[in-house]
């Protein structure tokens, strides 16, 4: 796997972590919760490598 791909997966995992963390920390806004989850979808699919 070329370096660029490894970097990409690392970035994906990092973003997933940040989004999950933000989702957990969000107390009030349901709107923001939905947004965090929506943005998560493609990142999770990529990391799971489901083709």
């Amino acid at each position: 796997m070329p370096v660029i791909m490894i970097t990409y997966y690392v970035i994906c995992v990092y973003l997933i972590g940040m989004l999950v963390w933000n989702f957990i920390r969000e107390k009030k806004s349901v709107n923001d919760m939905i947004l965090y989850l929506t943005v998560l979808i493609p990142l999770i699919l990529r990391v799971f490598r489901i083709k």
Partner: protein
Amino acid sequence: MSREWKIKAVLVIITAAVMAIGGFQLYSHRHYMTPIIAGPGVTKATKLSEFFKGLKGTKADTNVFFLEGKEEGGKILIIANTHSNEPAAILTALVFLENAVVDKGTLIIIPQFNNSGGRNTKPGDGYPLYFEIPTEWGNKKFRMGNRNASPLDQWPDPDVYIHYPDRQLLSYLDVRNTNRTWPGRPNGPLMEQVTYGAMQIMRQEKVDIAIDIHGAETMFPVTNCIVAPEKAMRIATMTSLTVKAREGFDNHVEPSPQGFRGLSHREIGDYSDALPFLLEAPTPFLDQPTGPKSVDFLLDGKDPFLVKLSKKRKLFVPYDETGWPMDKRVGQHCSVILEIIRQYSKKFPNKQLKIRNIPRYAEVVKNGVGHYFHNPNETDKKDIYYN
């Protein structure tokens, strides 16, 4: 559990459900196999990776069929589904694959040229995932694919695609477009390897005629035509004049521009001895200002917005309430290919091709394209291939 966590749990479940259902649909589409039948003329079934090893085991590898006549003669290669959202191409290729009897010369068919693109979709345009062609034994189901290969198979995209070898700057998307990556190279992006594989067939087999079947918008000037470079111009023009006079449909000739690189009708001619022809049939489904991209629209080509545009003379083909049905498109492709073969055989008598049992325009329009597909349940298992 607090109210906050109840909400969060519900949201997570909904998201997971959306992911699972949507993902499952896309996953089954990507892995759906259409049985295709090798007809009486097929003498050899192989893979593109046979001609370029690098494709082996990738989703870009695809079926290649040889129909060799008893007598030696000219060789023709038919490439279909270069763009899998122009499916009149694969239907035409299957009419040839399932029915053709070759008496002289060799017919080579690649029914699903961009295999990865055939397993991709265009959610932004609301493409259907499948379409079905009615036949006498039930419906035959096909995947509806996309113009470009799936990013799952070729990634990442560059900012700008630098064409090889001319270094012309093309859109980043075109790095996944097998009608921009000709003539390709063995160590390039996957789609350059696909076109390279096809170039290898043409060079090794000494192919004389290469036909790349497409469809184009009715609002685009290069539609309902044969695109050909200078060296194929004579045969293209005679074909166009003949189908007009004998079969009554228009199909004008467009010269292949020299300054626009990466297209089959340009590079095949420049990098091999084959005469390239790119066939375009009007495909209203591809136009932008239309109603929903439904399966019916894909098959009958009827759209009220295009009728309005036609009245304003904004379209490049005649268009009315009758639309532009699939049977008409496939029929045109069949007739034009047969006529190119006839004109070529006339011009090069020592490289003649004789192919029987292929319907012409009027017959396909009358019987419907489904009439020419055979029932896989009544076919010998060894003649069934999966695409």
